[in-house]
């Protein structure tokens, strides 16, 4: 939104307000300084070095990750016939997506409430949120299960969803609150004085400004849910094994490199989806609205 002047906007009033806020920034942003970009790529290089190791090991014959490197695709064959691992991956993706979306929705609402409405109570809530993040997941999971058992709910998909949501929610709230703090209500007020209903003013003015914080929070919520072994372990119904449950219980035998193969596939898919979205967004001749929409999210 911020960088696309072509994007058709439904409400002229809000459009003006936004442009006024964004116009001076754009000029600076267009300059990509080589030093900063080099730093960015260096960091990405560091972030992806262990990932590269995982990929290399997925093609290496040794079970124990030892060198010399002996190329093989046997782990991919093993993965293809590992129904349990594939099913667990599917469960993990469905669970994490659902929880991340719900956390984004509720977390944004809660953040708005803390910053805009609660004011005085904000500190209490911040302490509560911090506390929620602080409690080790293991402890939280056991406590949640005991509460659920006490009220006769027991293990189940609903509890698994709620528990994962409770863990992920504070992260979204904290990130969005950080963005909202210092973001005045002037723009939204202006839109409203021009006749926009509150919900419209929010959607067209504030939401685009916090969209990236919300997106960041959603990504956090996704990976936190994806990796949350203790919560899955204690709250999931019996037999509903998620990916971390499959991996962390390999204590006796050690995990086989087919899990490296799985990780490679997951990362490959995620990177490909990102690049495809990028390519679509860059293609200028296509469906204008769609491209603008994607740029809004990915831009």
């Amino acid at each position, binding site marked *: 939104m911020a960088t696309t002047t072509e994007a058709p906007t439904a409400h002229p009033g809000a459009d003006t307000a936004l442009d006024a806020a964004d116009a001076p920034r754009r000029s600076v942003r267009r300059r990509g300084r080589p030093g900063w970009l080099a730093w960015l790529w260096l960091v990405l290089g560091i972030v992806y070095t262990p990932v590269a190791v995982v990929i290399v090991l997925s093609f290496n014959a040794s079970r*124990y*990750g*030892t060198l010399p490197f002996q190329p093989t695709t046997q782990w991919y064959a093993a993965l293809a016939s590992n*129904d349990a691992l594939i099913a667990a991956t599917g469960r993990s993706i469905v669970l994490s997506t659902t929880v991340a979306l719900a956390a984004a929705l509720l977390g944004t609402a809660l953040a708005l409430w803390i910053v805009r409405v609660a004011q005085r109570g904000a500190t209490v809530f911040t302490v509560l949120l911090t506390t929620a993040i602080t409690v080790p997941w293991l402890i939280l999971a056991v406590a949640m299960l005991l509460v659920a058992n006490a009220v006769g709910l027991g293990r189940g998909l609903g509890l698994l969803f709620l528990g994962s949501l409770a863990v992920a929610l504070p992260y979204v709230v904290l990130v969005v609150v950080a963005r909202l703090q210092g973001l005045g209500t002037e723009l939204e007020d202006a839109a409203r004085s021009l006749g926009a209903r509150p919900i419209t003013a929010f959607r067209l003015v504030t939401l685009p400004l916090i969209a990236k914080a919300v997106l960041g929070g959603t990504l956090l919520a996704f990976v936190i849910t994806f990796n949350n072994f203790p919560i899955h372990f204690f709250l999931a119904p*019996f037999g509903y094994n998620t990916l971390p449950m499959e991996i962390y*219980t390999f204590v006796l035998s*050690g995990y086989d490199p087919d899990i490296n193969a799985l990780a490679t596939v997951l990362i490959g898919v995620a990177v490909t989806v990102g690049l495809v979205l990028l390519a679509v967004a860059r293609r200028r001749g296509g469906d204008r609205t769609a491209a603008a929409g994607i740029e809004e999210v990915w831009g």
Partner: protein
Amino acid sequence: MVTRRWAYLLALALLGALALAGCAEDAGEATDDDATEEDAAVDETEDDVGDAEQPFAGETLTVLNWNDYGSDQDYAIEGFEERTGATVRHVYHSSGEELREILRTGGIGEIDVTNPNFSFLQQMVDEGMLQPLDESQLDNLDDVYDDFLASEDLYADGELYGAPWVWGSTGLTYNTEHFDEEPTSWEVLWDPEWEGQVGFMDSPIEAIMLAALYLGDDPHDPDLDAVREALVEMRPNVELYWGSSDDWTRAFTTEAISVGNFWAGDAGSMMAEGEPVGYTIPEEGAVGWIDAWTVVADAPNPELAHAWIDWMISEDFLVEWGEDPAGNAPAPANERAQEQLSDEARERIQAFPEQVEDLAIMGALTQEEQQAYTDLLAEVKAGVQ
């Protein structure tokens, strides 16, 4: 793959329904609709599945075990499903205490069978988690070593609660390239020559029993102060307190550690893969363990649970598992299975029953002992003098 398996199971289930319908004269109209599907299903399944051998069709057995520990091998599950017509599903844990935690928090009433270590059995019986076994339903119990069945840890009020399944030892394991000759005593772990090169198991009961063996004390009732002193004294030699097979194997293959205590079966697997691993039971003896199958209290399908245990301890299954190079099998507690193993497999899974008399088998611990052991090792690991 998945769909085909489901189709197969569905077919089995339908066959079971047909068998039941055949027995019950008045069930004719209920199965009318299914007839065409059954015809199709019969084509897909092989006809070695006889009606009489499918007594549990449609039931689901829930197994609580370690991941990748025999019972979830394809041949384990398929073999059982063919014999009984039932479906098997697994719930995994990653420690003996976790096993009990799962039972405490809703597992009782859901889980049929589980596979605890001997040392946990008595506490589980005390907590009402298990039910006595019906020996008349366990034909293969006759093949289990008499010595194992004689252990009083298996019984409460004269009733049998566990069927011994596999056993193993945690012996002295070393890098053959770093040792000119096989070490014969645990003393090597305390020898300053190996400073910073020892991998020591991060398990309270193993650590304390081993130190007691080294000190010449009773491993089942040691003097904890002396044990603590010995473990503190060993600490400068320790490079890693290992918690899983992965921890040990990685540290060993990168030569971060040269010697330590490690599980027999896992050491055997490494030998089979050509790693320079030596494994021995030193003169002081070593810690040993036995895992036993048990039926959980309130198991949804107690008869099916017995059928499972009888399959798990059978020579058919244990030999197939032992011969599977990727199976990570320990030594079988079934004497006939041990006899049938090939030399290669016997070496790999360290199935040498003559070792048993040199082992101090982990026995039942009280809650207080468990707490004291855990706190002691925590202090040692944290570096408290």
